[in-house]
Structures are given as C-alpha cells and as structure tokens.
C-alpha cells in the first residue's frame, strides 16, 4: 500500500458524504455520526436535536419485534446472533423480562463499546428502551467497567438526563475478567453469584436472571437498535450486506498510528483500505489479528485485500467477532506474540472445566517453549494434538477460542515456527509486543 494510494483514498472519502467508512463525527456515519470526538458525550438535547425523538409508546411490542426481524440485525458482541431471536424468545417466555446492555468489553484491544458509552450514550439507552418495549421489560441493566471512568461518567450522566422513560436503568460494575462478559456469566453475576459462564439447557433470553427472560445484548447492538427504531429496516439494510445488514464498528489496534481508533464501516471496503485510511499503514503488515484475542491471525498480504464485512469474513472462517483488527508489523515474531497472548488468556480461565484448567496452561507452556527455542518438531505435533482435543470442550467458548487462535498462529506463522523448532535464532526483537495486554485498561 503506497502513500499515493493512501492519499487517493483520503480524497475519495472526503468527496463523498456516504463514504464506506468513517470515524467519530464524520458525515455519512451512523452510530458515530454527530459531534466530533473532542466534544465528548453528546447531551440529551443535542441527541434529540440531531436525531429527533423516539416514540416507543405508540409502537406495539409486536411491531418492534417485527422491525428487528425485518432488519436482520445481528449481535455485535462477537457471536453475530440475530437480535430478533432473543427478543422473540423473551417475549414468548412470560414472566418479568429484563434487558441487559453488555458494555463490559472484556476484549483487551477493543474500544468500540466504551467509545459509544463515552460519546453516544443516549443512542445506547434508546436501543435499550426499544428492546425493553419489544419484550415488555420495565428494567434495564447497563453492565460496564466502572474503572473506565470517562465512559462510565458519560453513561451515568446520560441516565440522569432521562425522564419519562418507561424503564428504570441500573448501572452494574462488571468484574475485570475476560470471561465476565459471556452472557451466562452476566446472568450469574446479576443473580448475586460469580461472573462465571455456565452451560444452560435453556437460553438466557427465555430463562435468565432468577429464571426471568433476560435479553443480553452488546452496547453496539443497542445503539444500532436506537437508530433502527427511528429510521426503519429498509434504511438499516442500506449498509452492510444481505446476510449481515447494517454498519459495523471496528477497532484498529496494534502497530497502527493511533491504536484504539474506532471506525464505522458501512459500505464495501477492504481491510487494507481501512488500515491505510485510518491506521496509517503504508506497507503490508506481517499479519492482522481479526475478531479479538480469541480470533484468527491472517497473513498480512491476504488481509490487505480481504473484504471488511461481517458476512464475508465469517464465510472465510475469520469472523469479525468484536470488531478488532490488530496489526502486527513486519519485524515482529508471530510465535512470540501469540505465546504472550495465550499465556494471558490461559490465566483468564474461569477455572471450572478440566480441558480449560489443565489443557490451556499446557498449550501456553508449549508455545512458550517454542517461542524461546526450547522445543522441537515433536512438541509442535503435541501442540497440534492438544488443540484438537480441547476444541469444542468446556462450558463456554473460552478454551475453543484460545486453541483457535493457536491453530491460526501455527498456520500463519509457519516460517517462525519452523525457525524456532529448528533452534535457529529469531531475527526479531524478543521483547517486541504490539498489543494491549490489560483487560482492565481505563478509558
């Protein structure tokens, strides 16, 4: 990707109000449209002035669920689960439903959810109110990390500005653990137990907090719903594609000019275009980590031309997940980077299931041995066998996600693996690690 191409892209983008991408305050964006980053949180008055009011009382719950069904809106937390299925299940289950906005954003490099809370809190609340109306809930919980002061303060302030809303909002501080954002862990925590993922015979949307239907949806999903309720399903489908409609937020991280920058993608674009335009990437990177720390590594040259869309990436077996694109520069060792990620992830296990408790530390140790050239070919075979035996096991997706990352690293960084397994010297600086490693990072 040359500098000239970069400029061309910038010119093309500036010329179009409906460019395929944008960041906070850019015209043509949806969730990020409105005031620029420097202006902080959008006030209730500014929010209403820009988007107009949201009349939920005159809409029936059925019509709202029909709207979500027609929109095809999929969850943006990682699972891409259709929101309509959750709402329909909750509405059909009787009882006293609860709506939870999951803004815990446990992915260490992701910034999209806290960005929405910090800058567009009323849009997130509008979405939560819409979901509450659609299932007949009178209570909403916003599940976030209090330690992220800016986003928490903006949300708390926004809640104080709401009056006349049909549902009451409670803010709950999430434990700083990677797995605490998993929906069954959220439900467990709200019941007064630990934030531990549990295998559930019945989805939490039907049988969640204290047996009541519980709609747990990601903060970005809620924000989309806040706009969808105003503008309709046909408008919503103008962005994205038929399989995964709507725009999507992406966090650029790693070896980019401004790690943590959040970009909204609404039209056809490649990963390379996003990295050039907003990441300052002028040369092909070594690799890109797609979807989160339990996502997949893609070779840099492949990634540059890959379409940046939820359905396209999912079809390639490299789902966009929480929206993370983390860049590794050409002078970094993929094996060492992955070893460090896996060491951290193994420590984030909830400690409940055998394959996770016993398997992940062994995976981490083997990767570390390979990274430090203390292991050979036989250990690579052992590592492959281990990941195969752990995949699909456990009460939640954590062990499967970790070994998925490892498998993608073994494929993508075959040259590093070969060098390390033969005991040859690694040409890259040992200490170089370009990703945020702290789940409790404050913003």
């Amino acid at each position: 990707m040359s500098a000239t191409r970069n400029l061309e892209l910038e010119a093309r983008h500036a010329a179009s109000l409906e460019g395929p991408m944008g960041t906070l305050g850019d015209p043509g964006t949806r969730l990020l449209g409105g005031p620029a980053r420097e202006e902080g949180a959008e006030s209730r008055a500014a929010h209403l002035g820009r988007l107009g009011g949201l009349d939920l009382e005159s809409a029936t719950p059925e019509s709202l669920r029909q709207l979500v069904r027609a929109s095809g809106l999929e969850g943006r937390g990682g699972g891409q689960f259709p929101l309509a299925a959750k709402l329909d299940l909750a509405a059909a289950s009787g009882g006293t439903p609860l709506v939870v906005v999951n803004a815990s954003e446990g992915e260490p490099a992701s910034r999209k959810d806290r960005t929405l809370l910090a800058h567009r809190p009323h849009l997130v609340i509008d979405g939560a109110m819409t979901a509450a109306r659609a299932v007949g809930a009178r209570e909403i919980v916003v599940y976030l990390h209090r330690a992220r002061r800016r986003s928490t303060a903006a949300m708390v302030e926004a809640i104080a500005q709401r009056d006349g809303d049909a549902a009451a909002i409670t803010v709950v501080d999430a434990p700083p653990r990677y797995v605490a954002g998993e929906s069954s862990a959220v439900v467990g925590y709200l019941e007064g137990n630990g934030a531990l993922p549990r295998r559930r015979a019945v989805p939490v949307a039907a049988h969640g907090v204290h047996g009541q239907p519980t709609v747990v949806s990601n903060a970005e999903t809620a924000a989309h719903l806040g706009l969808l309720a105003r503008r309709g399903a046909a408008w919503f489908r103008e962005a994205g594609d038929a399989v995964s409609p709507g725009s999507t937020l992406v966090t650029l991280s790693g070896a980019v000019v401004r790690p943590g920058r959040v970009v909204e993608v609404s039209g056809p674009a490649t990963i390379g275009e996003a990295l050039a335009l907003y990441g300052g990437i002028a040369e092909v990177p070594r690799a890109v980590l797609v979807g989160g720390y339990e996502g997949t590594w893609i070779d840099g040259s492949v990634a540059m031309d890959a379409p940046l869309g939820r359905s396209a990436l999912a079809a390639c077996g490299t789902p966009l997940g929480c929206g993370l694109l983390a860049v590794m520069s050409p002078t970094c060792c993929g094996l060492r980077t992955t070893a460090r990620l896996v060491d951290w992830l193994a420590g984030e296990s909830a400690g409940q299931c055998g394959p996770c408790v016993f398997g992940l530390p062994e995976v981490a140790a083997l990767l570390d041995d390979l990274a430090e050239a203390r292991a050979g070919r036989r250990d690579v075979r052992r590592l492959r066998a281990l990941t195969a035996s752990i995949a699909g096991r456990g009460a939640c997706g954590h062990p499967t996600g970790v070994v998925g990352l490892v498998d993608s690293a073994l494929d993508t960084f075959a040259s590093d693996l070969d060098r390390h397994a033969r005991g040859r010297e690694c040409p890259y600086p040992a200490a170089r690690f370009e990703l945020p490693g702290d789940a409790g990072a404050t913003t």
Partner: protein
Amino acid sequence: MTGRDEGHDEGRQWVLELDAARCDGHGICLLRFPERIALDEWGFAEVQREPIRDRATLRRARRVVDACPEGALRLVQSAPVGTLGVRRAT
C-alpha cells in the same frame, strides 16, 4: 424433563449433554456408557452429541445421567432455538 416418557417425541430426538463445569473426572460414565463417552488425557468426560435413536440406548443414557455423582450429565431434546416453546417452570 420429568414426567416425560423415554420414547421419542414427534420430530425431536434426545441428546446426551455434558456440563463440563460440573465434571470432576470420576469416570463412572465411561464404565456405564463407553459407546458414547470417552475420558480425555486428564480424565474428564467427552460426550458424543449425536442424537440417540433407539430405546435401549436411551434407557442406558438415562441410567448414566443418574450415575454421575456430580449431576454433570443430562438428556435434552435437540430443537433449534426459538422452536423450544419454553415456558418457565413456575
């Protein structure tokens, strides 16, 4: 699943399911139902999730569910989300 017969309901099949968070590796399930259960290298159960089609196997599955000291196994009906028609028990 109480109050239901062990037979097949219309259009639904029973699946033996493991709650891995409860499994403590006692291994009794392997002795009782080796055709569907294996233990991994650390001694924890791995369960084949193929639907159970015949009554004799279903009876054996029912017994292995009862035999697990941790209550980690259960029989569930496989049906896509949204078609369960689930109602709260209370």
